[in-house]
């Protein structure tokens, strides 16, 4: 079951191609990370999903039906370039934005109180936005994004500008909303948060999807048979035990007098072969496979593609 499917979306502005035959599927209930360097086309795709612009070709399916104007009521969107009316009062403004999303005045009011209590900001209701600090305003923006109970929440760089505490609160809220049944799409450069909250990702670069799938699956796709070995003993003895099928990739002092070494296995070498070679020389405590971090995957994909072009 998919919340959203983009099928062969192409969008060009004058001479510039923003999206070239892009297809992605966002499963219901997932937290979907939309990754890519600046200018890759993420915002163009998000704007098409929000019906701010239309694609030149291709189509979007929302809940398995073609995207239509009423769907904006079921989407909450926090743009990267975001702001509020400075002279308007916080409460009034949140209700206005919720009503533009089709919610009734009374319900918006009720829901807003719940959110204000959750965030402990009930005192802000009658404050003007210009009196709020940047961090406070961002909390309000987050509230306006989700106030109308959207099924699908799109957050473009939600963590930028937040201090670690507020970023943590937002992260927690994202997961809570997911648990309550919402599907979240978040576009970000912050790979640590991707690993923490995203269940699926798609990486867009130069207007095309380079990578898509569940996070563990994507990460394991980039495994390179690198293992981290913890052992007690001499580093020299460890090195001497290796051969062309198992190359030392790096080493460091570990805790409690242990040492850590990373080893890349080549050809048909297995972990068992490695252990068989090591055990006579050092005392092995643990062997774990190194799964690449999203950071590394991101950089690798982007650089590869750039080099290819």
């Amino acid at each position, binding site marked *: 079951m998919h919340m959203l499917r983009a099928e062969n979306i192409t969008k060009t502005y004058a001479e510039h191609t923003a999206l070239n035959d892009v297809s992605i599927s966002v499963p219901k209930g997932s937290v979907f990370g939309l990754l890519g360097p600046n200018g890759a086309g993420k915002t163009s795709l998000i704007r098409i999903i929000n019906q701010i612009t239309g694609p030149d070709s291709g189509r979007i399916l929302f809940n398995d039906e073609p995207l239509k104007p009423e769907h904006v009521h079921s989407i909450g969107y926090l743009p990267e370039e975001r702001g509020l009316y400075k002279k308007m009062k916080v409460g009034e403004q949140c209700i206005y934005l919720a*009503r533009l999303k089709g919610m009734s005045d009374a319900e918006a009011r009720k829901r807003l109180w719940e959110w204000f209590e959750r965030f402990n900001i009930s005192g802000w209701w009658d404050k003007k936005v210009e009196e709020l600090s940047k961090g406070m305003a961002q909390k309000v923006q987050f509230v306006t994004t989700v106030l109308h109970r959207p099924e699908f929440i799109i957050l473009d760089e939600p963590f930028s500008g937040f201090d670690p505490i507020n970023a943590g609160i937002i992260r927690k809220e994202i997961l809570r909303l997911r648990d309550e049944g919402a599907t979240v799409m978040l576009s970000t450069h912050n790979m640590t948060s991707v690993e923490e909250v995203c269940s699926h990702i798609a990486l867009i670069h130069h207007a095309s999807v380079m990578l898509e799938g569940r996070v563990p699956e994507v990460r394991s796709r980039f495994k390179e048979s690198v293992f981290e070995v913890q052992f007690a003993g001499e580093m020299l003895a460890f090195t001497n035990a290796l051969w062309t099928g198992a190359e030392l990739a790096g080493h460091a002092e570990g805790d409690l007098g242990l040492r850590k070494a990373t080893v890349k296995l080549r050809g048909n070498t297995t972990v068992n072969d490695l252990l068989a070679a090591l055990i006579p020389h050092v005392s092995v405590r643990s062997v774990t496979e190194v799964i690449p971090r999203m950071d590394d995957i991101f950089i690798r994909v982007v650089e590869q593609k750039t080099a290819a072009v």
Partner: protein
Amino acid sequence: MNKTGLIINREYFTRVRKKSFIVMTILGPVLIAGLMGLGIYLGMSDQSVYNVLVVDLTPGVIDSETSKGKPMFFNRLKNTDQVTFSYTNRGLSNAEFDSSAYSLMVVARPDILTVPEIEMVFRKLPSLKARSYIKAQFEKVIEGEKLKLHSIDKRTYDSIRTDLDVISVDASDGTTSFKQEQAVVGFAFAVLIYFFIFLYGVQVMRGVMEEKSNRIVEVIISSVRPFQLMMGKIIGVALVGLTQFLVWVILTGTLFALVSQALLPELTDPAAVQTTESVAKEVNEDAMNQAMMNEVAELILFRINWPVMLAMFLFFFLGGYLLYASLFAAVGAAVDNETDTQQFMLPITIPLIFAFVVAEFALANPDGAAVFWFSVVPLTSPVVMMVRVAMGFDAGTVWELFLAMALLVAGFLGAVWLAAKIYRTGILMYGKKVTYKELYKWLRFKT
């Protein structure tokens, strides 16, 4: 409420609740009525009493038994409630005058018949009304003296004096025409439209720029179509303008009625207008002024077809406003900050200012070809046409009015269409110095 309604609602109420709006709305009519009242007050309600010492230096002795031996002005200046004359033939020094009971000292030189000049010494500058009364009194005496000198009979002189009345008659229906005067009233409406378009057009532009630079616009157009946002803003601001106008009309009307009731009871009473008008001719110059004012009042109240005038005002105001406001909205969307607006404002302000100039020209030459063309072309018609509407149309020319109205509707639809295209692209375009070439490209973008 639909979404455009919500936007109109927000645009309207945030503006109407602003302190600056409330202050301007209330202060505007007070200022206007105050200025009008002040003018009337200064001219009319001078209640001070003037005790005038006439120092008559023309030959003669004041106490002479025969009227022949008396100086020229002795006892010949008419006293009124406010101005009383005393006579002497010995001038007071300024210091003596200062400590005397007289409020004015008028010195008539011995050769006043050849050098018509009097010197008026005052402690407090007398009102215009008192001065012109004194002047008229002296003139009358001097005139009488000159008539005697040239042995001209007073009656002959009166019959020679001519005060020509020009009555313009419209050949088409044979009625007396007050077109010139009516045009002035139309011009006042034209000025009003001109200012309202500018004032509120710029407000629309500012509002668009505010949303763009606040970066709230992307959130809003993820909920509504850009066109709804733009039209909501334009309509909301229009309602603000109409509210302000309505309050101004009501407040100014009330205040003016109160002020004029207090100062000029006759002006507001049409029955009094008739009587004073007929009597006026025979009385004195003061009453002549009064009669002229009454004529103006009559013109304002009766000659102009007010229902048509107001309906046309509303139509041309709204049409012109919609046309210009959408262009202003497009400019606001195209630029990042106020300083960049200049280059795009120019092509909008030039036709508007030009319309104003043509409207002024129409006062002097209402049937000129230029006036016809610019009262029909949509960019200038809202201003220029008001002058022509005030003058009225007949069966042969009324098509020009309908043509102008139709073209204005077409014009604003075109402007809205054009503006919507620029707006849609512009509001999401940041950090780019936009050129006309770029704008042209936007017009050709698909959604």
